């Protein structure tokens, strides 16, 4: 039983990084543009379908498809920002309404292009690795590694580059950052596009693991927001940890409790944490 629990613990960590990449996008967008972009799940879906299309239809190598999918999601994010989100900066309600509207538009577009019938990508990396009694799919391990690297590089960039410092400065005090010469409008566009590209990367890797449906984005944005709130919205490193905690809670919860209510276990955990730490596990307590 210990090995079963350990196996599901590892599985939860891996699945949790998918939640974490969305949570990172949510946190970045909220911290810089002042809005919660609920359409990030749809940008994940765009990345997933783009990766599937480039791999299975145009027969490009999967790594190339992932890069292209990230670019497609990023471009979609740029167009959305220019057309819509630039008019909702720091207006939480308007940003929320616009992002919810965008969800319907993007999902309808996917339905039109690909119908609602699920798509299954040809196996990119099949098989699994076994250590003792624990078996983990190779594709899941690679996905975890890539996402961890991307999230890690994002954190390092924010911590050590001028752009990263400018971003953090803006998040702390927009007026002061502007006075110090930070080009705030470009920063907001850049963060918005980067968040969508991150979501697109998550989607492209997701496509190598699971079947795709136009409605897949709804589940992942919910998980991403849950993870961001669990960690404390605004805490970048916490976004990944929040995602992992959620993934592990669901996996371990499903082992001992009915699987049919799996999504509820993460929510129950979130509520329990917020009762004692309203600003999240790593959020500021003031």
């Amino acid at each position, binding site marked *: *039983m210990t090995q*079963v629990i350990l*196996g*599901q613990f590892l*599985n939860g960590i891996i*699945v949790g990084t998918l939640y974490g990449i969305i949570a990172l996008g949510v946190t970045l967008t909220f911290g810089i543009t002042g809005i919660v972009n609920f359409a990030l799940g749809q940008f994940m879906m765009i990345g997933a379908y783009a990766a599937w299309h480039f791999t299975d239809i145009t027969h490009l190598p999967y790594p190339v498809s992932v890069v292209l999918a990230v670019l497609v999601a990023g471009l979609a994010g740029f167009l959305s920002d220019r057309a819509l989100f630039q008019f909702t900066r720091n207006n939480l309600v308007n940003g929320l309404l616009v992002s919810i509207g965008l969800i319907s538009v993007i999902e309808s577009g996917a*339905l039109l292009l690909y*119908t*609602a*019938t*699920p798509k*299954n990508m040809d*196996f990119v990396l*099949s*098989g*699994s690795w*076994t250590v003792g009694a624990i*078996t*983990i*799919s190779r594709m899941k391990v690679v996905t975890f590694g890539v996402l961890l690297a991307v999230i890690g590089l994002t954190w390092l960039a924010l911590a050590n580059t001028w752009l990263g410092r400018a971003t953090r400065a803006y998040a702390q005090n927009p007026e002061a950052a502007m006075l110090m010469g930070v080009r705030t409008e470009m920063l907001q566009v850049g963060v918005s596009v980067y968040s969508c590209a991150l979501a697109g990367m998550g989607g492209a890797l997701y496509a190598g*693991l*699971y*079947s795709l*449906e136009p*409605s*897949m984005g709804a*589940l992942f944005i919910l998980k991403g927001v849950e993870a961001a709130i669990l960690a404390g919205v605004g805490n970048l490193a916490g976004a990944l940890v929040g995602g992992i905690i959620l993934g592990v809670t*669901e*996996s*371990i919860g*499903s*082992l001992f409790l*009915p*699987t*049919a*209510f*799996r*999504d509820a276990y993460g929510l129950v955990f979130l509520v329990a944490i917020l009762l004692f730490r309203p600003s999240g596990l790593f959020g500021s307590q003031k």
Partner: protein
Amino acid sequence: MRFIAKFATTALLGALLAAGAQAQDVVKIGQIEAQTGPNAIYGWMPSQGVPMAIDEINKAGGFKVGDKTYKLELVSLDTRGDPKEATIQLKRLLEQDNARFVYGPFLSNVFVTVLPYAKQFNGKFLLMGGATRMHDFVGTPEHDFVIRTWNWDAGPNGFGERMVDYLIKTAGPKKIAMLFQNDQGGKVLGEIYEPIFKARGIETVTEYFEPGTKDFTPVLAKLAAFKADYLFPGYADAPLYDIVRQATEGNFIRKFFLVRGSLGPGMKNKDGIEDYVVYVPKHFEEAEKTSPKVKQFVEAYKAFYKRDFPYDQAPLCSSSCYDHVHMLVAAMQKAGTVEDVGKVRAALLSFTHSGVWTIKYDQRGEQIFDFDIAHLKKGGAIQITRVEP
């Protein structure tokens, strides 16, 4: 000027009369199936087969009932598997389009949702669908409108019982783990098969997953602890692809038994599975070689749609599909009416149709037809066993 006005009036009156006469000579058929969506496996093929049959009949000049010749008109609506959508669509078909014959639904959750509304029209139309839940209502009082266009799993003609007997004969399992979607379709499968396995001394455990689940690893790990001989997952290909892949990659279980779904998930994972036994209403690749009617149907599909024949989806044309339109026309001709649904129903239940499938209805109104058991082994070798109830 007067002559032109008279001529125009006569022409207009003539056109209106002709249109009116045309409207009387058309029998409207409705269809409510999930043509797209996660459960499209159960609705897409019927949406392909019904138009083909209607086109064939109309191109042959229609069909005669009494002294009149009729043509068929199809109103086909995509429910996407959404019960609320299906109810609105059925309302349109019955109240606006005045359709007396409606094909669908194949999904139980859709059927139970439309049922209260449909019941108001008992005696005025026929609802001919393959939904498993329809079994509970077919042939019962105030449900004359229900005709179930698929085999029932249990009972003397039950295909599920035959499938389980085949599994016992070829593999002799002692334990089966069942994994179904947490909805009407999944629940009814649990209700049917737990007693069937128990009656044969096979131990079972059942888990349900939330619709939309993608990561099945935790529940597969839970089921693996039961050390089942076979995993019995259901019921649509959408989750089956994920379940079979994760079960084999995670080394949880490599043997599968299915009564819903297709060969597709097994074939995609053919190097990871050890055994994959699936109920296939007809294995078209084999049947095409031996049955002229199947071959004709395949050729007709390619000519009509100008694309390759969907061998993986075609088995689901066993419900509310091509053969059923021909049966309905034959029933109307036998009954001598296109309007009296009671007589048409009685006629439908009175004969055996020999088409792509050999189909008849039992006295309650539930379909009985021949089917195949596809046994897929590791590597992709398939063995087909024909069963004729």
